[in-house]
């Protein structure tokens, strides 16, 4: 079974700062990779996904993620955060099957 680790539990930063959230997974085969976001009081929403092709994936709201196969990583980035990016971010993986394995999540707080 695959496992997912997210490096940071809580990140606090100011508006306009750059954001990078780490995600590593443990599985040697082909994987599908996802970042989901949960804004306060809302449900999990898909930010972006990687299935194949260009390892640099662009998602909604200016987010992007880079799949580095040799490092088993799928880090999420945003060059300049806004207060509205305050949310919890989850990295998730599925491999040969449909089950999503999630990391524990990273809470991002953006100070205005």
């Amino acid at each position, binding site marked *: 079974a695959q496992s*997912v680790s997210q490096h940071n539990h809580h990140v606090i930063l100011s508006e306009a700062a750059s954001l990078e959230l780490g995600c590593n997974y443990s599985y040697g085969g082909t994987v*599908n990779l*996802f970042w*989901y976001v949960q804004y306060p009081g*809302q*449900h*999990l*929403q*898909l930010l972006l*996904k990687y*299935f194949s092709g260009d390892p640099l994936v662009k998602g909604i709201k200016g987010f992007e993620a880079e799949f580095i196969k040799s490092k088993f990583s799928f880090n999420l980035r945003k060059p300049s955060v806004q207060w509205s990016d305050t949310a919890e971010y*989850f990295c*998730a993986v*599925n*491999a*040969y*099957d*449909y*089950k*999503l*394995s*999630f*990391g*524990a*999540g990273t809470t991002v707080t953006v100070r205005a």
Partner: protein
Amino acid sequence: GAGVSQSPRYKVAKRGQDVALRCDPISGHVSLFWYQQALGQGPEFLTYFQNEAQLDKSGLPSDRFFAERPEGSVSTLKIQRTQQEDSAVYLCASSLGGGGGPADTQYFGPGTRLTVL
């Protein structure tokens, strides 16, 4: 509807009570998933349906947990004789196809927060 809906949104049960949680997936979605999210953790897989067939129930924590999707649309997760450790958010997700391909992005509902006293 436009998205996955779940009801009730909040449920408080006394220990030992049975509860039933409902999920309405996106219309036309073949696959339906249940996940359990404990406080401060990511969601963990419970069970998976493709149409009305329950293809995987390996994540159900005990035989007190039971899920069904009799007509291939609405699903119910039932927990019998609830225990305090069952307190969590129960998430339902649906996807258009089945099997982990590009069509199979899972779309999540708002969840049901279960508190067992």
